């Protein structure tokens, strides 16, 4: 039973977990909104809120406390000068978690962690970007033939080898069945008998 043991391990060692939180906090402060899983968001939210509360009272000591989590002076500066001032009148609750449902790939419950004053601007959907196959179609001016795989090519060669033999050496024993002879033929070496009459 898990009594008196708060917090999730998130299947990481302590150092790994703390490093991940550090990275995620830096991302949150930079982008104001991050997408992660519900479990990680729930672990992260108290950490993020504590950083903001710390940053409300600017000073060298406070800056160093925030720097412990976000080891980047530019980001720390942003937290103190651009993020924390927005929340001076708000007694906590600076972030919200939006649940997105199971994500593709591992079906983990995805979530967005964002500041409550984050302003989302819906992106107008532009025209579809030209894919590589679109480009090929345009350059060739219409239909694009599918490139044939290597395997049938080898079989064709075997058939070509067999083709000139058949009419002349029909009576030779062991060569009566073309289907059987076609299989070991490509191992001997390709097109030793030259181009076939049938193919030309």
């Amino acid at each position, binding site marked *: 039973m898990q009594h008196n043991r708060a917090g999730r391990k998130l299947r990481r060692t302590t150092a790994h977990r703390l490093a991940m939180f550090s990275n995620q906090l830096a991302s949150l402060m930079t982008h104001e909104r991050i997408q992660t899983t519900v479990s990680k968001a729930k672990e992260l939210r108290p950490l993020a809120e504590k950083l903001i509360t710390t940053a409300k009272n600017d000073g060298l000591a406070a800056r160093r406390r925030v720097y412990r989590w976000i080891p980047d002076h530019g980001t720390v500066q942003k937290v103190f000068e651009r993020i924390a001032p927005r929340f001076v009148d708000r007694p906590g609750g600076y972030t919200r978690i*939006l649940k997105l449902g199971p994500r593709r790939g591992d079906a983990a419950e995805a979530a967005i962690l964002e500041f409550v004053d984050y302003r989302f601007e819906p992106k107008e*959907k532009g025209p579809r970007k030209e894919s590589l196959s679109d480009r090929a179609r345009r350059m060739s001016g219409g239909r694009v033939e599918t490139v044939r795989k290597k395997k049938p090519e080898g079989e064709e060669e075997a058939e070509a080898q067999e083709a000139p033999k058949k009419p002349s050496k029909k009576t030779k024993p062991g060569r009566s069945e073309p289907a059987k002879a076609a299989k070991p033929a490509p191992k001997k070496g390709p097109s030793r008998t030259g181009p076939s009459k049938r193919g030309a």
Partner: protein
Amino acid sequence: MPNPKRRHSKARRDKRRAHDALAAPALSECPNCHEAKAPHRVCPRCGYYKGKQLINV
């Protein structure tokens, strides 16, 4: 090694499975696009959740 002495009857097998039924997922209606969606989640179809939020569709 211990082994089963007797084959389990169909009745025993089926009784064991009496509690194995799957429950239907709980769904609510999106107030914006009226699509069925998971409750307390951002609507995956229109991206709304108490106002526009995601980039979708």
